[in-house]
């Protein structure tokens, strides 16, 4: 089908002057060229795409990178023992990073990996992203495959004791960053990946995660040091038998954030949890969580738990889908998305979907949106707690269910403190 002219024009404008990165090996060049070809074929998103009904992609499409002030805020995961890897304006920052070595983990820069002949990387780059285009176009992910120059390539061969912490930093006010992370968790291996920090004035991150049988991948992300953030992120995960994927994102403000997570449960008895809490204050806040979980094996469990707290004209979006394929019997799928609207100006738009082709499954979904519970507020105030503090307590209570999805208590506590600090500063 021919693309609408507006879309072709926008895509051409955005891509004009952009080059496939130089220097990759033949296989990488092929994968990038293939992505560029697919991207030209599908076009970049525009307002009239159903998948972008609630979020205007214009911020991601402007040919010129928008300017964003370099904001400093409390750093994330400061007290967490982790292997720190820093990217400044989208480029690996060796001086600021720890030595890239860790037991049970092969780790290197994406920029290096694409020049080498690493079997699993060759077999994965763009593969999960391409598979994730089934039913819905995700052109910004394809854009990432075509243009990403740097990122991290991680292969866990055993239980990795220390988390890897990717910290994004920004030096230029008009920097654009396109980063690609590739993760392979081998049979029985385990890895925790943390992400934090300001990426760039405009950030596009992509991640492909391939989890072998019995593997476990934990992902905890903090978005929040950059109020002028324009970020489009994608995570694609493929899960083997009895494997685990858990991802949690805390987002505080940010002008335009779209986090997409696309998961396929390929092996039986696998478990995938995706959760997030987003807090937005102000008309220029827009946060979108878009999740697509495909059950393609028996007896798997998936959970999506998303909470949004919005005020002063902030907008929150949730699009979540559970697709259960004919063979995925005994599926246990759960999806909840809730918003707490602190005033009448805030907006919450939700599109929960179930598509089920197996007959012996348990799937539930719910979406609610409501104001603060006045009775609870009065109860707290009647005990001497001032109104603003009482409201903060109820906000923390509201997001608690999402935070409970983080398996590591220490990390959950870190995020809780981050959240409490943010609330305090907003008063």
């Amino acid at each position, binding site marked *: 089908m021919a693309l609408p002219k507006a879309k072709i024009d926008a895509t051409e404008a955005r891509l004009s002057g952009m080059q496939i990165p130089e220097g990759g090996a033949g296989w990488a060049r092929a994968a990038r060229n293939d992505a560029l070809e697919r991207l030209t074929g599908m076009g970049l998103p525009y307002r009239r795409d159903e998948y972008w009904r609630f979020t205007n992609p214009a911020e991601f499409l402007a040919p010129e990178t928008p300017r964003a002030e370099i904001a400093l805020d409390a750093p994330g995961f400061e007290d967490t023992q982790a292997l720190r890897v820093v990217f400044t304006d989208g480029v690996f920052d060796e001086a600021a990073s720890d030595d890239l070595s860790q037991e049970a983990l092969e780790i290197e820069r994406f920029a290096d990996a694409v020049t080498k002949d690493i079997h699993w990387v060759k077999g994965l780059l763009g593969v999960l992203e391409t598979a994730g285009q089934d039913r819905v176009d995700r052109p910004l992910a394809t854009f990432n495959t075509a243009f990403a120059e740097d990122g991290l390539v991680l292969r866990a061969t055993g239980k990795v004791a220390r988390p890897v912490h990717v910290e994004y930093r920004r030096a230029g006010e008009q920097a654009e960053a396109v980063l690609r992370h590739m993760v392979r968790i081998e049979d029985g291996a385990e890895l925790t990946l943390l992400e934090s920090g300001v990426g760039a004035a405009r950030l596009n991150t992509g991640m492909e995660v391939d989890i072998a049988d019995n593997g476990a991948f934990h992902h905890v992300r903090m978005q929040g040091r950059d109020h002028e953030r324009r970020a489009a992120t994608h995570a694609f995960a493929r899960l083997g038998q009895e494997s685990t994927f858990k991802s949690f994102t805390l987002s505080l403000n940010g002008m335009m954030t779209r986090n997409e997570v696309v998961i396929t449960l390929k092996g039986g008895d696998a478990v995938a949890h995706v959760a997030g809490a987003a807090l937005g204050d102000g008309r220029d806040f827009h946060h979108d969580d878009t999740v697509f979980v495909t059950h393609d094996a028996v007896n798997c469990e998936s959970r999506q738990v998303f909470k949004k707290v919005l005020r002063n004209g902030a907008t929150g979006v949730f699009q979540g889908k559970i697709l259960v394929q004919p063979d995925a019997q005994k599926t246990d799928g759960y999806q909840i998305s809730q918003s707490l609207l602190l005033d009448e100006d805030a907006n919450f738009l939700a599109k929960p979907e179930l598509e089920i082709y197996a007959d012996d499954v348990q799937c539930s979904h719910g979406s609610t949106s409501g104001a603060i519970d006045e009775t609870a507020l009065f109860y707290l105030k*009647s005990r001497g707690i001032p109104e603003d503090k009482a409201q903060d307590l*109820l906000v923390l209570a509201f997001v608690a269910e999402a935070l409970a999805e983080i398996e590591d208590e220490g990390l959950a506590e870190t995020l809780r403190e981050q959240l409490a600090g943010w609330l305090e500063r907003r008063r």
Partner: protein
Amino acid sequence: MLKISDLKVKLEEEDKQILKGVDLEVGAGQVHAIMGPNGSGKSTLSYVLSGRDGYEVTGGSASLEGVDLLDMEPEERAAAGLFLAFQYPVEIPGVGNMTFLRTSYNAQRKARGEDEVSAAEFLKLVREKAKDLKIDAEMLKRPVNVGFSGGEKKRNEILQMAVLEPKMCILDETDSGLDVDAMKLVSDGVNALRSEGRSFLVITHYQRLLDHIVPDVVHIMANGRIVKSGGPELALEVEKNGYADLMDEVQ
């Protein structure tokens, strides 16, 4: 301690007068009970005194130790020493009971210009109070009132009272939803907190609570006014003859 004069209150949203001139004075260390049929305005009185939204004071006054209550925010009234034990204590998932207690305690101290206490000091204080009231320490770890039985919720109210040490306690139908054993436990808790400097206003439908918490004065409230006051024997009279006889007598 508590002085209410000719208090008139209507609902904010509709033109409905609930309290039509309530006069009441509770002395230091005294326990007063208010009884009355449904819709007489008993609970409204407790909400208005503690500052809940939705009511409009159209006349009269209410003061605690000479300080005007009606101009204050609910949290200011609490810091001034007023405490309302709720008929239906609110469940707050995600907020630990201990956090709730400590936040309340420190907020009141701060409002009074006193130093806040550390988590460790506070833990010690709460454990002692809980022990005195025979409250399981496990209850402190759970989210506020979530999954608590009716009895546990009411005992949690009493624990808050014990920790916050208010001067004036209003108990709004504390006996509702309690079986005999739970009522006894809660009453024992209240009695343990009775002291010369602390007064109680016990709102109840039934006389049975007053067997356990023996009041100095009993008031009968009807149609937005206190229509009769007397000693504990008045409660027995109501129990025996019901409110209807009493209403006839008053009219």
